[in-house]
């Protein structure tokens, strides 16, 4: 067996299959996480604790790379040396939920001493063989080889945009701590397991270019996240559409939507524009450019893995048949700027309890409380509002406040069945956030709090003094620690 392989050695002998180059001291640690999710149905409390066991890839500068999913809602993260079982607490230094990556740092700096960190290789292409590194209970390395079958843009679990993904055909075996599994090429980190389907034996991996992007951002003072441009597009395969849009000679994609307040709007991109090139890369009618490494791949790769927030990217387009150039200054699309945020993690949900009525803001996190099939099982009207939020609320500068449920109490008698109603006005004041609602309820009209809803019954009245008098009993009865959380 070879002694720990240095990066230089591996570069010299790329022909050696990974399994043969098995290092003695693998750059892996076990990561044990205990966490608690927030309970969106009982927003004042947390759910029962869960624990997850995974592997982390040891990187230079004493850092450990894992998926964001692993350490989301964590209370306690612990690193464990594979061979000795030695443990230490760890902190989450940077987390990016959209790219599903997180960096951990051991509390004890010397904890990772003696482990040669993994270098990162970004040259993986279709046809390469990657080894999935897992640990046997003894701490020995279990390496399984697979073939990279596809490199393409795919949605990540959070489902905000698409990211570059490696698809690997690989017969993975179950081991404890298989939650996060590094994929290695010539003893260098090539990717991190994103999801695995044991039936088709297909593994999707977060590829090195995305990891590199994340690490580079993480090194800067202020982590900004992956950039976005703020438009949607449609391929122009249809010659009739191309002709209608005035496309001349060059192919490209048809812009179908430009979201308010995004780089695309600021740069002046318009619906109906045909984007023919981004930077130096021509875009074909399917929306692909020719990548030197991967060949044809969707051009959004140029705006995620290849670009950083703050970058200025020239867009070449045709508008009414005339060529134009627009410069988009990319930026990260903060979840706070959504009407219904796509995710709220590691932060408690906002809510307001008023005499047994629970008010919350619509968010995808709330809808996901209905489980993996939330799109079909959650209240369909709310799913509709979340899905079409940019169309329904084009000015964006608001939240949707919902009366999510009613806890039976004296002040809410007869209202017990109300649920999932969107609040329009309270005491005559328009409600665009939970903060608005908290303010408006303080000003009852002639002793009544009047709540107007978009849906039937359209109006609900409460006796303000009764609500106030009943509050302590309500808290006691239903174990509500606090009647509101507005941050």
């Amino acid at each position: 067996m070879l002694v720990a392989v240095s990066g230089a050695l591996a570069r010299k002998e790329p022909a050696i299959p990974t399994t043969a180059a098995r290092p003695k001291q693998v750059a892996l640690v076990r990561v044990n996480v205990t966490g608690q999710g927030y309970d969106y149905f009982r927003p004042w409390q947390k759910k029962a604790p869960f624990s997850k066991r995974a592997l982390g890839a040891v990187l230079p500068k004493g850092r450990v790379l894992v998926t964001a999913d692993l350490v989301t809602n964590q209370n306690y993260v612990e690193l464990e040396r594979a061979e000795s079982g030695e443990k230490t607490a760890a902190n989450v230094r940077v987390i990016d939920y959209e790219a599903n990556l997180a960096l951990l740092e051991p509390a004890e700096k010397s904890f990772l001493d003696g482990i040669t960190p993994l270098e990162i290789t970004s040259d993986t292409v279709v046809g390469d063989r990657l080894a999935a590194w897992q640990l046997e209970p003894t701490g020995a390395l279990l390496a399984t080889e697979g073939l990279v079958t596809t490199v393409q843009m795919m949605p990540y679990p959070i489902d905000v945009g698409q990211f570059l993904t490696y698809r690997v055909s690989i017969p993975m075996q179950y081991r404890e701590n298989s939650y996060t599994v590094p994929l290695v090429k010539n003893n260098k980190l090539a990717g991190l397991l994103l999801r695995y389907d044991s039936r088709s034996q297909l593994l999707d991996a977060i590829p090195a270019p995305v990891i590199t992007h994340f690490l580079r951002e993480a090194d800067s003072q202020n982590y900004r996240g992956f950039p976005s441009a703020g438009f949607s597009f449609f391929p122009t395969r249809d010659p009739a559409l191309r002709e209608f849009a005035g496309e001349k000679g060059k192919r490209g994609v048809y812009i179908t939507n430009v979201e308010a307040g995004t780089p695309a709007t600021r740069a002046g991109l318009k619906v109906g524009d045909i984007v023919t090139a981004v930077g130096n890369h021509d875009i074909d009618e399917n929306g692909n450019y020719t990548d030197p490494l991967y060949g044809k791949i969707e051009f959004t790769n140029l705006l995620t893995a290849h670009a950083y927030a703050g970058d200025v990217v020239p867009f070449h387009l045709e508008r009414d048949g005339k060529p134009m150039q627009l410069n988009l200054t990319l930026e990260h699309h903060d979840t706070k700027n959504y009407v219904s945020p796509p995710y709220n993690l590691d932060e408690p949900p906002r809510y307001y309890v008023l005499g047994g009525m629970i008010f919350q803001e619509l968010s995808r996190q709330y809808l996901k409380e209905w489980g993996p099939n939330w799109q079909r099982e959650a209240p369909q009207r709310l799913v509709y509002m979340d899905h079409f939020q940019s169309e329904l609320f084009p000015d964006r500068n608001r939240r949707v406040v919902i009366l999510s449920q009613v806890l039976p109490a004296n002040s809410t008698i007869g209202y017990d069945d109300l649920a999932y109603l969107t609040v329009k006005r309270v005491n005559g004041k328009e409600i665009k956030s939970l903060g608005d609602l908290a303010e408006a309820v303080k000003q009852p009209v002639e002793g009544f709090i009047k709540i107007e809803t978009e849906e039937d019954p359209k109006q609900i009245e409460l006796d303000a003094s009764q609500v106030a008098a009943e509050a302590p009993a309500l808290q006691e009865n239903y174990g509500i620690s606090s009647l509101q959380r507005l941050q």
Partner: protein
Amino acid sequence: MKRIFLSGYVALFFASLAYAQEGTPAPPPMEPQGPQRTGPWKSSPPAQEVVPVPVPIAPPKPNGPVQKSLVRITATSVDPDYKAPWNAGSLQRGVGAGFVINGNRIMTNAHVVANNRYITVERDGDPNKYPAQVQFIANDCDLALVTVPAKDFFKNMVPLKFGGIPALESTVSAYGYPIGGERMSVTTGIVSRVDFQLYTHSSVDQHLAIQISAQINPGNSGGPVMQDGKVVGVAFQGYSGDVAQGVAYMIPTPVMNRFLKDISNGQYDEYPDLAITYAKLQNPAQRKYLGLVDDDRGVLVSSVVAAGPSDGILRSGDVLLSIDGHPIASDSNVELDGERAQFEEVVERKFKGDSVKLDILRDKGPMTVTIKLFKPWPYSIQGHTYDVRPRYVLYGGLLFQPLSLDMLEAYRTSDLRLRHFFEYFILEQIYLVHPDVIVLSNILPDPINSYLTPYKGAIVDEVNGKKIRTLDELSQAFAQAPERLVIRMIGDGPPLVLDRNKVETARERIKTRYNVLKEQNLEERPASRIAAAGEKN
């Protein structure tokens, strides 16, 4: 009374209620969604009170020679094919029951004879099959009248008389031909509950129905349910065995009588409706706010449908205090003939053109309003339709159809936007802007539409800059098309662009390749009339 669509609760009905007609499969569930809901409330089975039922000691009173009134109806029907609407549709055959009433008429369920092409009836002790015709059909309350032209058919037949609403726990007997049998079958049970129920035949109408514990199975449909020698109901629907057992429903005599009275002028005018939604007024603070005295009366008007009779008369926030002089309790009940019933029952017993008088409270001031009743049209898309040909326009291999329950079920779509437009068609007054919600429902592949698959399921908004409100307007826009057609769909997405000349050259090709007999049908013509016209030619 119309059922207002609200997601979640609806699925339960679609999944579980089945027709009691042999040969007709249960309506497909709207969506593969089980009745259990995850949500803030952990689902637990509703608490069921255990009520001991006295076992009848004496046998039920004989109902007389029901054989002399009962007929076995065999109907061959053609159900339209919404996915290929130019086709005649699929052939079905079903058996149901019916019974003779005065005037040499046979009463049965609408779903036994809906979409029929040929009906025969048989009677006990007679080997002949007699061709029959549907005289009147009321799909909104699942009743129909059938006549037999053959002379002497009704000779020796005994017309049955109607009773009233049987008492709870009293014994009733159901007659019919369940599970394909040729001989009459009798089952008995007791009256379990009298309440408003969804009539699944239309899937949008709710009327009074009586739940009985007698076994009702496919083939019982349309058969009489008897007590003391009188008809007290028509067996019509139940649950499939895996959902609930010993739960069957019959149409009670008030609904039957109303149907007979409605047709006495020679046509069926359907149920009128107030076309409002309302909320119970059980919250003391809300009652005080609205200025109600503490007498447990009144319901709150939530929405008023603009296409309905209450538009401009009632408005959201009004409190309904009494209807035709019957005080409305805060839980929406009135007392009618000594029985408590939902206040809509007052409207239920009325006819098109009748008026209803409401005492209301508006801005704390009392008022009396009179509403002339009719049936608002937008509900029709949310229910099943029968004896009509599906409307569609086929252009360039693109099939455009107006959104309806039948169409949604045929395509079993889970499209969020389509489902929203369907469910909120009335409550969000979508029908005012889109009387027809025109969906590009299907594409017959051809070289001229090879790139158009992504548009499937989209809703047409405008053609060449002109808003399209109805299927007729779409058809006209296509007929008057300039060289290029630009069809905008609702929502984000590029326009669908068609070259008229290319469409014209592809027309015959597509028609031949897919055996399309007719490129459009704009009118909902009763299929039976089409058949009759065909016979004359």
